[in-house]
């Protein structure tokens, strides 16, 4: 009996003393970890502040850095699950995605009244806005005040026939000015200056905080006139075959030349990084090339994705599964893995005319903001003909960075009109209904390096929207709607308005 009682007591004490499976952590160890990480962070920040070059000042002749495409173990790439796009649909309210919308009216460009007819592009920097019209480039403060002319393009207009109202702009002949996209890193602007007549193609940089008011012409040892402000760097080569499709700054002292996929798929060269003076730092090969290509033409409407996010250049080559952050001189850090699943298009089948890709998906737009990535995906090859036949479907999706979820928006994939994307976007806006102030339906057109979506619209467009049924019926707060209405009443039809969609 005694033994039985003793055994029972032992069993009870053992079972009752079983340690609970607790999620506990070693506080002291975590404190040390924080101190260590904070120290490292401070060092990095201090280095960034002083703009410590990551690249040695002098490089031995012929030196190339070893390509590093390894992942950052601290921030492993996130998977964007496009393969399951059709399994998750979500209706967003704009207020879930955006916390505030700023409307900033822009002063007119004092030296140019043709930009509205010839068209313009905008680039939002941290503290500035740039408007590029043809080959001219204008600088604004972010509050809408016109600041400066960076470059006044020389269009080399020639009269056509006897009709004095028609002029033709020849880019191949004597055109001078800003060529292609412009890029910003903090307050530094990078652009390509082309002088077709002099056969010069120069990388320029300009400090946008600079208070110069006139257009000084930098002294040139090569004795040709540059009508753009700033500092001249590398000569980029004027001939098409010797040029990279895109020239993008990587840091304040380096840039990359990027080939379009149509070129890199053939020559196997994806990107080359350079010091600003043109010294080559590194070359990245393109591993997804085509071989035995017998056709004389290629389908080419598969865009590359390239943007700066937090001043880090981010890049995805067409058909590739990886979105990289590019860290000069030699690192491609995978940031996002695009899981295309059965929807993936191989390089060869993408380029080859006639190959059926009607059930495949490809990305046309990829806008990364602080919390979300906005993707526009196409099913079927996007051509005017296919659009007319409605054999192209357009899907809108939002990837939530915090949750890792990709949600398709409930938008009719055949609801587009017109023969091109541009045509469509100007007429029927698709995206997320604006419940913040009843403004435009939201879909990013452009995103600044800070991760803010923005667009520039004409006052006329806003007025038209205010009188639309969509605005009138909008359930956005009345005071916000009134503010927007008030703004539309104040602006002129031809006045530009910068709209910044902010996420805190």
């Amino acid at each position: 009996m005694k033994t039985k009682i003793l055994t029972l007591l032992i069993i009870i004490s053992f079972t009752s003393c079983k340690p609970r499976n607790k999620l506990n952590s070693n506080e002291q160890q975590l404190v040390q970890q924080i101190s260590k990480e904070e120290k490292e962070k401070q060092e990095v920040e201090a280095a960034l502040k002083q703009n410590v070059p990551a690249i040695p000042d002098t490089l031995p002749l012929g030196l190339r850095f070893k390509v590093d495409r390894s992942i950052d173990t601290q921030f492993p790439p996130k998977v964007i699950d496009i393969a399951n796009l059709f399994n998750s649909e979500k209706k967003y309210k704009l207020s879930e995605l955006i916390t505030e919308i700023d409307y900033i009216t822009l002063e007119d460009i004092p030296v140019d009244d043709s930009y509205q007819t010839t068209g313009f592009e905008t680039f939002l920097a941290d503290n500035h806005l740039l408007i590029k019209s043809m080959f001219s480039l204008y600088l604004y403060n972010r509050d809408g005040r016109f600041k400066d002319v960076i470059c006044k393009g020389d269009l080399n207009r020639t009269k056509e026939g006897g009709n004095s109202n028609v002029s033709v702009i020849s880019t191949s002949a004597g055109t001078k000015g800003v060529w292609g996209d412009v890029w910003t890193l903090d307050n530094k602007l990078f652009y390509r200056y082309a002088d077709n007549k002099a056969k010069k193609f120069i990388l320029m940089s300009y400090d946008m905080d600079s208070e110069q008011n006139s257009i000084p012409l930098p002294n040139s040892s090569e004795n040709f006139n540059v009508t753009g402000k700033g500092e001249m760097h590398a000569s980029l080569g004027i001939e098409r075959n010797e040029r990279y499709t895109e020239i993008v700054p990587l840091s304040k002292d380096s840039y990359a030349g990027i080939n379009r996929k149509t070129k890199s798929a053939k020559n196997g060269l994806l990107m080359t990084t350079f010091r600003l003076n043109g010294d080559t730092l590194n070359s990245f090969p393109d591993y997804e090339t085509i071989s035995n290509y017998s056709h004389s033409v290629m389908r080419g409407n598969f865009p590359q994705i390239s943007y700066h996010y937090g001043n880090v250049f981010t890049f995805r080559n067409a058909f590739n599964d990886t979105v990289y952050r590019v860290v000069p001189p030699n690192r491609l850090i995978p940031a996002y893995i695009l899981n295309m699943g059965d929807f993936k298009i191989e390089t060869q089948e993408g380029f080859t005319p006639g190959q059926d890709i009607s059930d495949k998906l490809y990305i046309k737009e990829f806008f990364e903001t602080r919390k979300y990535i906005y993707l526009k995906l196409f099913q079927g090859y996007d051509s005017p003909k296919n659009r007319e036949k409605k054999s192209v479907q357009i899907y809108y999706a939002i990837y939530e960075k915090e949750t890792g979820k990709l949600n398709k928006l409930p938008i009719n994939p055949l609801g587009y009109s017109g023969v091109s994307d541009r045509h469509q976007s100007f007429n029927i806006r698709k995206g997320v209904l604006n419940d913040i102030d009843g403004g435009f339906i939201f879909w990013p057109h452009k995103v600044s390096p800070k991760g803010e979506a923005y667009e520039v619209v004409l006052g006329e467009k806003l007025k038209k929207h205010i009188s639309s049924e969509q605005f009138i019926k909008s359930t956005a707060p009345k005071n916000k709607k009134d503010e927007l209405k008030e703004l539309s009443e104040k602006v002129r039809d031809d006045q530009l308005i910068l709209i910044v969609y902010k996420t805190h």
Partner: protein
Amino acid sequence: MFKFNLKILIRGIRNKPVYSLISIAGFTFGIAASLFIYFWVLDELSFEKFHPDHQQIYRVLTLSKQGDKIVKSASSYDPIAVTMKIDYPQIEDATSISYSSEDSPLKIKGTSTKIEARRAWIDEIFFEVFQGFLFLEGDMETALDAPNKIVLSEKVAKKLFGEELAIGKTIISDKYLEEVYQVGGVLHIPSQSHIDFGFLLSDKSEGSVGLSGGWGRKSAHTNSYIKLNKDALIDDNFREQASGHVSRYSSHTDKLMFQPIDDIHLHTDYETFWYDKKISNIKYVWIFSGLALLIILMASLNFASLTTARASERATEIGIRKVTGSDKKSLVIQFISESVMQTIIATILALIVVVLFLPWFGNLTGKEFSFTFSASLIASLLLITLLVGIFSGLYPAFYLTSFNPILIFKGGNPTGSKAGFTKSLVLVQFAIAIVLIVSTGTIYKQLQFIKTRDLGLDKENIVVVPTGLWYSIGSFKQELLANPNIVSVSASTEPPVDFAWLRGFHWGGMDSQDTIQASMFWVDEDFAETYNIEMVQGEFLRQNYSDFWKENDQANKDKKAGKSYAVSLPVVINEAFAKQMNVEDPIGMRLNRSNVIVGVAKDFHYRPLHNKISPMVMLNDPQNMGVVNVKIRPENRAETLAFIRDVYKKHREDRGFSYSYFEDELEQVYMAENRLANLIFKFSFLAIVIAMMGIFGLSTFATERRIKEIGIRKVHGAKLTEILAMLNKDFIKWVAIAIVVAAPIAWYIIHKWLENFAYKTKLSWWIFALAGLLALGIALLTVSWQSWRAATRNPVEALRYE
């Protein structure tokens, strides 16, 4: 056998009613007191246990670098819950609750009476995790299934609707904008919940500002929780990943810790602020459990010592029973069963006392107790009763039955000089009593110290009126000052009771990373005058409000334009801050390259005395004022209060009026200590009474045992004083030893308790002396009364039968 023992017991009670009363009353008090403490401890230990899966639920704590410190808190980033749930298969569910920083008005649609209640936002997972909240109306599935639905706490529902049903009714909150809600449920929040709110809204509700932040900033008002799977694999890998979770999503270096919700109430080990609710300390559970044990021990010792002391009186009985054939076993059983029967009687009486006085005890402790016979209570009571009964009967039983019957009948003293046991009981009891007297005395002294300490500011005649955020308070202040009974009016974020927003500050050439932590306190230019705060250097804040708003507008424009923006304001620092700066003249220096120091105020206590006066920065920003502090004259208080109310209503007709005295707010902060002192005082008193009863019983027997000796001594001419001294000597000796034993124990306990305070009273020698004297006095009085009675008796009565 039982019948026989019962008869003997009843006879014993009849024959010696005083001694029986002493032993049974001692038990009754002991068990009643222990039961009260049991309920209190049980309540303390039952926090959060009403949730079915409480053992699986953890609150997420963050360790973050703040200035030069690493601070632990329950502050959370809004996305923590949702991302953790996705990232770790070990986590079954994760949820967050975000509290509003101030109360909001509520009224029933179509009425004008408003109440103020704290709002909180929750996500849709909340009730999946916290299933212990009981829906009195509505249910968890539908309570918040529409954006305009609201869940009221039982208290708020009662305030608004009385006994009527609330569900489906429309209520309005019109703090800034009019928000119309439909009641989706009424929830009972047990008092053992650290989660407390007035009403709940879904984070998807219209205009919700709760849980909508990102990784940018963590909030002290947001708490995140995770619920682990029942058999979750908790390995080092999971621990490491979960701790470093924030860094995966942001550039912050914060690390996460996970506090079981069961531990929140008693084991929260970081510096708490006003928004950390229902936080106590396991120390108090130990203190009170110890106290209960001591009381039971004393009551048991009393019983044991009294029974042993009565041994001589029952010697003849034992002798006769032994001679007539009783064996030792039956005698032992008799004594133990007598003892157990007495403890059973005492327990029944104690239960009656507890049932009668439980509401009073609830009032005293600020808790709600309900007396129900749970299985654990019955088992505990039974165990205590039997254990105490057996333990108390054990020694006398074996001791008495070991008497030699021959010696008894020869007329010898079978107890002989073996009174050592009873004397040592005196020692233990008095040692306990002295520890309690010292503890009570020091707690009282500390509380007096808190009450009388110069806080560095005036605390009398200041009325605090909560106003909510109010940007243009100027005309309200002016109208108040028109009343001659109002001396001064000042706005501040909160009254200076327990307020601290911590910010990092740097100055001069310091690196912006290398900051010191200081409390930020928003006050207006009249704050120093209202609270009579002295300036040691420079001047107090002055503000030109039109300039302020102009600068503020410009800053907003700059912000919109993406430029760096800052409103540069004058600030006043306290002496502690100036000391940290360690500069000759801080006046004119800029903090964080923006705000200019215009003055240094003498240190004053803006947090409870548990905390040291730490560096503080006062800033006059009209956008952060939440209360108005009105200094009034002591005369005509009622009229002055009515005047304040009327002026307030005129300006703020949309908000209800409420007020409190600053002194009461201060009192509120030390409520826990006051309650503790009150409890300890009462239980210590009880313990002392039990000790007195014990010594009274023992001295009675001691004198009775020596009654013949006293008679003989008197016959031989002994003086009264000599007899008194002889009888008292033994007890006094043991009490003196008790003082020596108790003093270091008391010192240690009280020293530990005082460690909770940054500002504390000194451990005074006189408290120890007083406790000793008191113990000695009590012993002397009790013993002397008995001795005097014995010494003044006629010796003939004692020697009559010799």
